């Protein structure tokens, strides 16, 4: 019997895949991707983002193709393709990847809070609160997680319009010249933005939780497209707002950008932005850690709360003993080449193997 089978009662409508994909993709990446991209590709960065978006779409297509052969989640797909032991090994890699992604998001955000607001509060205090919150969300099951993702998109969408205010200080000649970077530069830029657009791959874990999952593919694509367009928009606004050198100097251009905003009752908008960003970050951490703990549960047949506790303790200890910039450095090093490559190479490979097996069976 397929273990990934989920009671119809706990499934969510395919429509929410849009929000799950989109909210998982937008996170800390959007705050800081401009700097690296500006260094490599400058004014042509938007091409890199579009290419990265295309890559995301292809990967989504691959994922849905895999599941059209093997309905279930990545663990059942792995088992089918490689047999129990090797399959489980790859599944464990996925679990580890999800855990690292979740940790990375959390520590990045804690770092932002440290720099912008409360440098004196220890990291573990934030980690404890976030973990309690995540645990509380998890106890509601996947339906609640979807709800948080949905509401987070709903409650943070207005931040996009804030950027129009910023455009008051824009210098549109900064967008020119176009196409003056080599293809290699643009591809390099694509690699660095793919980190921003990462997060769609959680579909491999929550696929069985979607009603009529096959019909949800278009929503996944829409979600990814929205993220790509928003990222392009944010990049273009940062380009016209900052001069090239300034952009390369600023660590969180999206946040610094909002500090230009002055409303009659709010003098400095970026503090609101940093706090409000928690609403965007929390679904990120939640979905990643849910995927990790769910994977662990499926692999070792334990109750989901035990891996969740284990992960909380790992995250807490990391926060207690390693300073956030140091751990961020390590985590980003893991995710940037290895995580992205893993996703980019492994999923097509998996599709290929499953496809071949399918063909053989037919013959």
């Amino acid at each position, binding site marked *: 019997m397929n273990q990934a089978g989920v009671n119809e009662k706990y499934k969510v*409508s395919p*429509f929410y895949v849009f929000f799950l994909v989109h909210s998982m993709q937008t996170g800390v990446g959007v705050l800081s991707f401009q700097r690296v991209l500006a260094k490599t590709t400058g004014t042509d960065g938007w091409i890199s983002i579009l290419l990265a978006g295309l890559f995301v779409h292809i990967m989504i297509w691959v994922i849905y193709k895999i599941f059209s052969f093997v309905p279930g989640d990545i663990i059942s797909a792995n088992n089918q393709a490689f047999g129990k032991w090797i399959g489980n090994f790859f599944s464990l890699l996925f679990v580890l990847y999800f855990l690292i992604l979740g940790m990375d998001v959390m520590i990045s955000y804690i770092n932002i*809070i440290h720099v912008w*607001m*409360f440098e004196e*509060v220890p990291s573990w205090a934030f980690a404890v*609160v976030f973990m309690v*919150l995540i645990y*509380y*969300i998890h*106890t*509601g099951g996947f*339906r*609640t997680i979807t*709800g*948080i993702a*949905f*509401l987070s998109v*709903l409650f943070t969408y207005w931040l996009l319009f804030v950027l129009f205010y910023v455009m008051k200080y824009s210098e549109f000649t900064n967008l020119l010249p176009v196409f003056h970077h080599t293809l290699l530069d643009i591809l390099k830029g694509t690699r660095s933005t793919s980190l921003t657009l990462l997060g769609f791959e959680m579909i491999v874990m929550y696929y069985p939780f979607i009603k009529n999952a096959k019909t949800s593919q278009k929503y996944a694509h829409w979600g990814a497209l929205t993220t790509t367009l928003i990222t392009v928009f944010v990049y273009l606004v940062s380009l016209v707002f900052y001069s090239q050198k300034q952009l390369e100097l600023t660590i969180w251009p999206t946040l610094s950008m909002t500090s230009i905003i*002055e409303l*009659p*009752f*709010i*003098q*400095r908008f970026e*503090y*609101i932005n*940093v*706090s*409000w960003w*928690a*609403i965007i970050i*929390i679904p990120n951490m939640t979905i990643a850690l849910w995927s990790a703990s769910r994977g662990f549960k499926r692999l070792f047949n334990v109750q989901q709360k035990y891996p969740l506790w284990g992960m909380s303790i790992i995250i807490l200890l990391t926060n207690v003993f390693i300073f956030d910039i140091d751990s961020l450095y390590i985590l980003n090093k893991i995710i940037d080449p290895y995580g992205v490559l893993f996703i980019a190479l492994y999923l097509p490979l998996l599709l290929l193997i499953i496809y071949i097996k399918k063909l053989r069976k037919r013959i």
Partner: protein
Amino acid sequence: MFNRRTFKKKPNQPNEKNEKLNNVSEVRDLFNTLSSSNDFINHQGTYNGIGYWVSFYRSLIDAQVLHESVLSVIPTLETINLEQIKENVPIENTLITSTKVVIEDRIMRGEIALRLDGNLDECLLINVAAQQGRQVEKPELEFGIISAQEAFVEDLDINLNLVRKRLPVPGLQVSEMTVGSLSKTKVAVLSIEGIVDQENVDNVIQRINDVEFDEILDGSYLAQMLYDNSNTLFPLFLNTERPDRIASALAEGKVALLIDRSSSALITPTILLEYFITMEDYNMPWIPASAFRLLRIFAVAFSIFATPIYVAVLTYHYELIPKDLLETIVTSRNLIPFQPLIEALFLEISIELLREAAARLPTKVGQTLGIVGGIVIGQAAVVAGLTSNILLIIVALSALASFVTPIYKMGNAIRLLRFPFLIGAQIWGLLGITIAAVFLMTHLIKLTSMGHPYLEPIYPFRMQDWKDSFVRLPFNLFKSRPVNLRPDDRARQPQPKKARIKKNDFNE
């Protein structure tokens, strides 16, 4: 938890088989037991040489009815036996029985038992219960300016009458049951057959049957026992004293509960936004109605967030204050020795005290108290340098805003919600408020009322149900009943005829 289990073990549910074997002596036993209470009357009379006994609780019956309709009937009969009397007494729903449980139950509800000397185990039960209680009056808690001025009273039958008058259709089904091992409260479950999802009704009845508690004195008791999740601030069943509200809920496909001896009825399943709706919203054109509804929802947000934001900004985020306000804010706080949190708590608690005290006092004294509290204490606190006058304004406004919610219990929930947010604001400023808000969001997503999501139509997102949520759109858009309730009959109005083409064109 522990209490309930012991209740189960208690043998207060009589075993029927044994009952039938022993009932001969048991009926007489019953009357002997009952007689030990001084207000229990055993009246003995003789007619045509046959002795009869009339037994009843003096305090439960209407003596006039007893005399006019029962005792005066007996002399008109030729022979006296129970059948004969039953036929001649002009009162409905009489019964001849010798089952002890039935007799006991009915006597306790104000019926009289008539026995003949020949067979003292068989009784004729006649209902002459006294109909005491107040008249139908104006609603007090949910007063409306341009809506109907009727409110429920404590009597179940009058309440049922108020509802039925508004829904004179045979589909309106009432199923009555009794809960409470001591209070024996009658509960009527109302629904309109053909509209309501029968599963909801079955669920409600099932849960009521599962209630094992000795005393149900009010609808709110019952509501809390029927909640899906009792660890919540939010009311999951809507308490109302307005029959029109019940009628409109029934028409949407909801289930209503009327409880005897309780002037508030319950509606279930409910959604969060329903608690910010007044019946007057439907009596007004849709634009003002929507505007007022939005105002109410804004008031809720203001009431929850205003004080915490004050505390957060003044404690941590002084950068946010615009330069023109800076002087005003800081000057007003200059002499205050406490942190903003202490200052805010001091004011919040004093406002809560005022509210609590005003609720306990008679109306006239209450008014005086309001003036004394609001003006004198507030002013004195500012002059004494305990609080800043800006905070005083904020706290007073947010208290006012919390009273805007039409459902009193929701107002309470909102007033209490402020405190966790205050603590969040004190710990991590705006970030603390945001985190508390996500906690609240999660809690609301998880809540269900009778198994239906509480946050609908926001999540799960259902476009059709937005017509009557934050705004109230015109009635011609009220085409379907709330999807949330999965009603059997979705359509509220027939599909418009095709001939109705919009033809304005500036009046030709």
